[in-house]
């Protein structure tokens, strides 16, 4: 095994939320309303950046580089 190389094994975090006082149907976009700049700042803390993105009616997906 190499002394040092790129670490492929990922760390994975999943956070699930619920709406405080109204059904999610009143805010169907939920977390998808977080603006890109705010997400980018969070990712900066994590030490990665968005390199590609795609979205459909259900969710947003970002490919990140670290």
């Amino acid at each position, binding site marked *: 095994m190499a002394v040092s190389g790129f670490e*492929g094994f990922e760390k994975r975090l999943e956070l699930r939320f619920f709406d405080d006082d109204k059904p999610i149907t009143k805010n169907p976009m939920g977390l998808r309303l977080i603006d890109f700049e705010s997400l980018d700042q969070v990712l900066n803390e994590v030490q990665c950046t968005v390199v590609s993105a795609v979205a459909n009616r259900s969710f947003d997906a970002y490919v990140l580089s670290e």
Partner: protein
Amino acid sequence: SSLFVYPTKIIIKTCGTTQLLKSIRPLIHLARNLGLTLRACRYSRGSFIFPKAQPFPYTSFKDEVIVVEESLPKSLCYRKASVMTPSNNPSRAWHVFTASADVESDEHVVVVEVCMTELDRVNARSFFKRKGDEKNNSDSAGKEMTRLSGIDNINANAYICDFAFDPCGYSMNGVDGDRYSTIHVTPEDGFSYASFECGLSLYDNGHEDISEVLSRAIDVFRPSDVSIATTYGGEDYNHEVTKRVERVLAKKLDLKCRSRLMDEFPGSGTVVYQSFTPRRK
């Protein structure tokens, strides 16, 4: 690495020496501003190939758990940390921490996480940029890798967003209705690694058998070592699915299941961790 944002769920998966746990507090804060309260948290990872290269707290799962717990509100009172260690290969453990506000899970999605090491050298070549690729951007080089490797055949219904890294390496996210999939590849010999992950429901009519999808994904890489962590939300654990995965991987890829571990997490479901190697190894 990948990030998925659903209306009430965020999944973030990062490799290398990233500081993933630093995202917890700001994400909770951003959600709070939208009137959303944290209901559950799950942090998981395999054993690192280069554990000494990781920064604190990723040098010790105990320290990681402390950091996660300190980042979470007290309302997530059902908490559990577990290290699932195969007796035949202690260096390939699966680490899981969960916290939930409810003892029952409301999530009926099955998440399958596959980790593969020692990729077939010929197959791994697909994930190096070729001469002339430098003229193309990473998007077009990524599309070429998707096609050459056969990743586009894993789920023909998925729209694939792919990216080729320089000089090698590949990431993709697959989008199919409300279902995601993701693949990340580090093809360098000596520490080659690929991961495949997807979220699905066992009860969706028209969705393919999970074992067939896994078989096609693993066949892209032909690895010498495979581990599969399957998380069943709620009361959905299905032993027949676990056995079917073992049967299909044995029949189609000649992979033998060497270890099968199971653990339950309050409010977060059941995790099954299976380890496979080629039958002739």
